[in-house]
């Protein structure tokens, strides 16, 4: 498989994966650009892997987890914007399906998770990998994967309960 063949068939899926992984369109763009630039330079090595697609996806996860450039600044801003946007959407489009609102709400809460916890959830529920495969991908033990997943789910529920409490307080 040449680099061009790879990108023509796999890039759209890779970008969807990156945006789900990062939760941020611009960060996904930066991460994939960086990964593709590196991948292009050493494509011959990647092409020798059993699955170039899995190799590049792994590069994307690693790049995301080690991405330090202004990530926190950008992420905090983005979450704020998203929460505002969700608030606006709730006010102006009450006829939207509840499932869409729930998905947006959960998406916003996912943005508050530490990167590794989010990555574990994406790999487990979006990529549908088992914990052993995730552990190999993240270079940690399966128990660490389970721990991160457990913490992530707990954090998401806590955030949800806090938001509900704030909302109820506002109503009263």
């Amino acid at each position, binding site marked *: 498989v040449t680099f061009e063949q790879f990108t023509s068939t796999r890039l759209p899926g890779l970008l969807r994966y990156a945006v789900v992984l990062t939760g941020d369109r611009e960060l996904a763009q930066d991460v994939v650009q960086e990964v593709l630039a590196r991948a292009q330079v050493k494509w011959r090595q990647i092409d020798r892997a059993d699955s170039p697609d899995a190799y590049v996806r792994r590069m994307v996860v690693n790049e995301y987890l080690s991405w330090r450039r202004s990530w926190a*600044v950008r992420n905090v801003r983005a979450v704020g914007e998203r929460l505002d946007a969700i608030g606006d959407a709730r006010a102006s489009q009450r006829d939207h399906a509840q499932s869409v609102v729930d998905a947006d709400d959960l998406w916003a809460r996912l943005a508050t998770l530490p990167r590794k916890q989010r990555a574990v959830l994406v790999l487990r*529920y*979006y990529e549908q990998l088992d914990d052993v495969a995730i552990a190999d991908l993240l270079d940690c033990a399966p128990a660490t994967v389970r721990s991160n997943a457990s913490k992530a789910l707990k954090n998401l529920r806590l955030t949800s309960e806090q938001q509900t409490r704030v909302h109820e307080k506002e109503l009263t």
Partner: protein
Amino acid sequence: MNQDAYQLREAFVAHEYLAPDAAEVLAVARVRARRYRRRRRAAQGAGGAVLGAGLVAGTVAAPGWLNATSNRHSGSSLSLAAPAPQPTPTPLTTPSALASPAAVASPSPLTSAQQDQAISAYFAAGYDYNDALALAQLWHMSADPSTIKAEAGRRLLAGQTLPFKPSAAGVASAAEDADLNAYFAAGYTYEDAVGLAQLWNISDPYQAKIDAGGKLLAGATLPLKPGSQPTAPTVATSDSDSAAASADDGAVAAFFKSGYTYDDAVTLGKIWKIDDTYQVKIDAGQKLMAGQTLPIKP
């Protein structure tokens, strides 16, 4: 699938539409790949002499690498392709820096603040994620990469040296990090970088961020105020990238029109020592368009 799993998958799938534009991403990646290739060639040219010594010294550590690798992957039934950690072929700094389990020991417990400081020192020295994987193998440590980075950073802060120098990409990114941090710390955004790239006639907003960060660090002011650009105005950049991509496509077309094939590009790549076959086609096509001949016939 339980309720959590179902809801999470729904949330993920519902936001796939946010994926960036593939053509734009690819155009910028190609520009960036060319830059990395140039840097690599420059680094290879400058470091050739010391590289030889480094490779000789590296043989001392090689069995450790090989053993660690084979132990880790033996018996694995995973189907995922695992990129091999990149043992950086840069010279060992001192004999004492050679990995030995006794010298390495286990990481000392660090507080959260100390860990952050150590990791910052690690990145500031130019090391990157792949270097952490390499160190983990060299030190026979199974901790996660963040712990390795923290331990390596702690050693750097203590004035010690690591078993190898940072990879070229890491050095470059460390130098760029300072510029990028300055850029974002001043409140500028990606959209501002697009605007600056337009003003400065640069095709890559990433490069604009670096240039802008460098100017800010030098005390200069930028022609745009932070946050002054509207979101997602990427049309102009796309145009520039498209122009670059179009020039590349022209060169590739010239390559094939002259009767050369993909296999010829692979052969040329070996002659020119370029891994990227697409880049070979571009280089070859440009030579043909300039009336030059190639070292092999179609």
